[in-house]
């Protein structure tokens, strides 16, 4: 029976990215960055997480942006979910972000929770992880010594585990803008605000009636790296017929390894991986063809 108050902890407030990185380096692996806090604080309250120090990065407004940079749509790590949902430029390029954000938690939580926090928490049911994988996003990681980029599909290394080194932080999520791409996201949950029972997102680029490029992301169903590579490979070069989409759904589900829990048995979650993959592909195709 967990208690519901955090254990004693120190608090530091970072004033810049550099300062945050210095603090991380100085305070070592028992320190944690805190952004929106909506994943970390609940874990601290039940003492599943007991950092010695939290480093508050909410003052890093330099990481609070959504902008087009070259051929990429870029999200600063401190961008709040609410800002993603409200952003016209996001909707213009990738409506799946809006589909997903509308289904993430609830409005007060979306006012605090951040894009970076969602990726770094690496919850196996995180929606943005599936979105990032679907879009083959790139994550920008900074440490006091260097800046490096990691593909979203390599960032997550297991439940609650990421490629981040000690004294390294995620600063930006970059999504390549694909002319003509259409996208969609959907999820099944038991109730508004619940974590996903299963979720799927996809983009498609159609050229001459066939799928020229496609990305499929899945969450909460044990999809390796939150994606469905086999299904993607299958679709490329084929027209998006019901039959092909159905096969893509089947292939996506085949790669999944969900766990039974109160959200449903394995059989149901595998079915959803299939069903939701098909749904987002169909919606994305409809959007590509201007039908919705």
């Amino acid at each position: 029976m967990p208690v519901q108050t955090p254990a004693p902890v120190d608090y530091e407030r970072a004033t810049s990215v550099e300062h945050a990185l210095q603090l991380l380096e100085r305070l070592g692996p028992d320190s944690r960055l805190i952004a929106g806090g909506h994943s970390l604080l609940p874990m601290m309250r039940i003492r599943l997480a007991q950092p010695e120090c939290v480093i508050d990065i909410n003052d890093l407004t330099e990481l609070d942006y959504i902008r087009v940079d070259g051929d990429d749509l870029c999200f600063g790590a401190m961008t709040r979910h609410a800002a993603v949902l409200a952003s016209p430029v996001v909707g213009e390029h990738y409506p799946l972000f809006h589909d997903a954000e509308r289904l993430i938690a609830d409005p007060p939580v979306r006012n605090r929770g951040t894009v970076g926090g969602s990726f770094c928490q690496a919850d196996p049911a995180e929606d943005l992880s599936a979105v990032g994988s679907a879009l083959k996003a790139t994550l920008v990681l900074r440490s006091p010594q260097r800046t490096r980029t990691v593909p979203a599909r390599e960032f997550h290394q297991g439940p609650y585990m990421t490629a981040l080194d000690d004294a390294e932080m995620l600063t930006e999520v970059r999504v390549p803008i694909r002319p003509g791409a259409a996208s969609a996201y959907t999820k099944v949950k038991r109730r508004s605000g619940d974590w996903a029972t299963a979720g799927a997102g996809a983009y498609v680029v159609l050229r001459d009636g066939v799928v020229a490029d496609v990305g499929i992301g899945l969450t909460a169903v044990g999809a390796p790296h939150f994606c469905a590579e086999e299904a993607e490979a299958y679709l490329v070069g084929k027209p998006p017929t019901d039959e092909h989409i159905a096969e893509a759904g089947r292939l996506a589900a085949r790669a999944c390894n969900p766990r039974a829990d109160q959200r449903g048995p394995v059989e149901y979650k595998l079915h959803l991986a299939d069903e939701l993959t098909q749904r987002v592909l169909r919606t994305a195709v409809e959007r590509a063809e201007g039908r919705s």
Partner: protein
Amino acid sequence: MQVTMTVNGTEVTREIEPRLLLVHFIRDHLGLTGTHWGCDTSQCGTCVLQLDGLPVKSCTVLAAMADGHEVRTVEGLEVDGQLDPVQQGFMEEHGLQCGFCTPGMMMTARWLLDNDSDPDEATIREAISGQLCRCTGYENIVRAIRWAAEHQGERQAEREPETAEQEVQA
């Protein structure tokens, strides 16, 4: 550590433990018990207050994180002895029964109306979807917020002459 923040327009400074949750700071250190807590896991929304003008769940914010920021609670809704239209709406439409979720609901409603003067039912339902009520089945909360939307102007109208007069005097 020491924190200083503006709460309902007044600056307050207190010595606190860094682990203190904002909801406990507001309730136990400032004695503003209108903000409630109900679940410990950021699900119920009885702890919602406004942080820099946005509704947030104060059980999932450290008080330290609010240092230097602005907090508004239910106690700050009434201005100069006049109820906010949201408060009035909750009364007129019976938007509360036990009253426990009410402060959080009203703080979200105030934010909603500040950003959308004429929200429809679906918009209102979405806005309060992160906050649980066990008494009303939400129907009268939706009606209360609609009432407030429809009567927003009246309070402003009542206030405008006063403001105008002050400006003249200035």
